[in-house]
């Protein structure tokens, strides 16, 4: 018994010391994490002596996991990072600055979509490399829109409002657009501001939410609730979309496969379109970046993995595996993407897409925006007054 234990111990020791393997630890989330091992195996084949260890974290637990990882300095070499999390975690000073790596690499700012690259730049440094993007577009029911005389998606703010009026006039409990989920909706609201030509900060960092463009966006957004064109309160997006009660909503590419799965009965009766135009058709761009933690002892290896994942042929392979949108522009010229009608719209929208200001206080600002816009929606304040309050809020947050 005792001898058996000793032998076992010896085997463990031998195994541990004999393998000169280098281990690359990666944290990844959601669907990406489940499928990343396919790419990791290819990487290991190209780089003998390297072992990639992927830890899958559900999105819902990821934020806390990274936070506790930072507090306890127990971090992997490399991690997938949601674009809106770049700033808060970046401000904690745990990401490796990548400018020196980029200098000797094929990776450069120009190969990515502009809006996506915005998310890796913090305080003038580069703290991540885009992996995949997602961009919000308009999902609409072609058949329902046709009923009210629209054989195309609403192209402008005026058309969207006009179509919405007609759609809501179909009867009781009939709406047009889903605009608001419960809670914080800064990411849903900001595209309207950008479309109107508004912004939160100007180049000198001054708060500009009282500009007429911003106020106009608040009013346009709120009008959909005032006139009951958009439902308020809980509902089920898929059911409402399938029944036709809410035939238009704005969301990201993940919805494409989810609609097919959840409501196969409306296959062929829906499509996607660009955001409606005011001054521009700007949308929200999100997605995930790669970040290297500065506690890592395998930074060279981690960078090698990033380069591997950024190569156009591997970006395409990854697209085929999970259908997430490639961040590298040239990949969109492959026939797999160029000939797909839905991807074509998404690709076009990516050229006109922005991300919110990349500052650690964004979450707090998004909360403030939601609070003030909500006050307009419920007619507690006028758009102008709400914008003035919002200005004070934001100035206090970034002070």
């Amino acid at each position: 018994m005792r001898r058996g234990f000793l032998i076992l111990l010896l085997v463990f020791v031998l195994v541990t010391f004999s393998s000169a393997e280098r281990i690359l630890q990666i944290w990844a989330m959601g669907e990406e994490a489940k499928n990343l091992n396919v790419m990791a195996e290819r990487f290991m084949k190209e780089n003998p002596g390297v072992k990639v260890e992927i830890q899958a974290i559900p999105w819902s637990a990821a934020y806390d996991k990274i936070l506790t990882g930072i507090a306890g300095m127990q971090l992997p070499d490399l991690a997938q990072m949601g674009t809106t999390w770049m700033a808060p975690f970046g401000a904690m000073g745990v990401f490796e600055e990548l400018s020196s790596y980029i200098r000797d690499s094929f990776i450069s700012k120009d190969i990515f979509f502009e809006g996506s690259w915005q998310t890796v730049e913090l305080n003038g440094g580069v703290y991540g490399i885009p992996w995949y993007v997602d961009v919000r577009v308009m999902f609409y029911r072609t058949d329902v829109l046709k009923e009210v005389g629209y054989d195309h998606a609403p192209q402008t703010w005026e058309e969207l409002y006009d179509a919405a009026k007609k759609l809501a006039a179909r009867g009781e409990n009939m709406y047009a657009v889903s605009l608001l989920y419960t809670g914080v909706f800064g990411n849903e609201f900001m595209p309207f501001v950008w479309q109107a030509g508004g912004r939160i900060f100007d180049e000198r960092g001054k708060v500009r939410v009282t500009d007429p463009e911003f106020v106009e966006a608040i009013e346009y957004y709120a009008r959909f609730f005032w006139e009951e064109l958009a439902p308020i309160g809980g509902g089920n997006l898929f059911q409402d979309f399938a029944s036709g009660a809410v035939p238009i909503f704005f969301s990201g590419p993940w919805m494409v496969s989810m609609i097919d799965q959840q409501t196969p009965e409306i296959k062929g009766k829906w499509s996607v379109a660009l955001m409606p135009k005011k001054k521009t058709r700007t949308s929200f761009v999100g997605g995930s970046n790669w970040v290297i933690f500065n506690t890592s002892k395998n930074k060279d290896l981690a960078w090698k993995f990033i380069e591997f994942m950024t190569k156009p042929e591997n970006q395409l392979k990854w697209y085929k595996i999970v259908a997430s949108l490639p961040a590298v522009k040239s990949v969109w010229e492959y026939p797999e993407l160029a000939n797909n009608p839905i991807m074509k719209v998404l690709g076009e929208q990516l050229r006109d897409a922005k991300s919110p200001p990349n500052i650690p206080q964004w979450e707090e600002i998004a909360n403030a925006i939601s609070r003030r816009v909500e006050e307009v929606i419920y007619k507690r304040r006028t758009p102008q007054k709400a914008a003035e309050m919002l200005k004070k809020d934001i100035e206090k947050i970034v002070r």
Partner: protein
Amino acid sequence: MKTSWVWILTFVGPALILLMVFLIIPIFASFYLSFTDFNVFVMTDWSRAKFIGLQNFVELLKDELFWKALMNTFYCLVVAMPVTVVLSLTCAVLLNRKQTKFKNFFKVSFFLPFVTNTVAIAIVWSWILNPSYGLLNWFLSLFGVKGPNWLGDPKWAMPSVIMLVIWKAVGYNTILFLAGLQNIPDFLYEAAELDGASPWQRFWYITLPMLKPTTVFVTTMMIIGYLQLFEEPYMLTQGGPLNSTLSIVLYLYRQGFKFFKLGYASSIAVILFLMISALTLLRLKLAGRK
């Protein structure tokens, strides 16, 4: 015989260490943090957090949303506590009757909400409360009442949350009351019956006074629990609409773990701690008075 300190420490030590590491030290740390400006930038180097005295508390007193959260939380406590007590006591008395059939079935059904995951519950409830195809508004429509937009209307959102809170709490407290009821000796009822006391009189003059220890325990736990209202509004409404369901702990969570203002969040925690302590002591004091 005197036990030596070595033995006391050997047996109590492990528990003591765990308690210190996971409870006592964090409590004091958070107390200290409430006097600092601990925020996102000092996460990796705690020494950079500045001591700012009472500034967090001063700020808190001027914070409109904090007052709103405070009012909302007390709204929940004041409404949910009496309703929960009455409902769970009623359930317990009914379950305790000799004539009641399928007792275990009812006990399990009352208790199930308490042990079910709040996430799942919240999804089901958000369907029940849906204004256009929800079960509740369908039920109301049978009586010709047009139900409100429960979660979308700032007036009705908090009552919706309170409904969920009560529904979740009744089962647990029913079991506590039931245990209390079963401890009341039968001879008291028999004697009262011989003296000609009506069922109502028996309940009023025997059951209620005899249940007093249970009632004190139940209400005390409720004060502690309801003031920490978090899961239900977090899952159901995320504090909205118009912050009408924002609770103190939800606001604390937002400040601390969404905005990383851990200093500010700690000062909320300290105030909540003081409030809970004060109310609990008050409750126990009232109970101790004859």
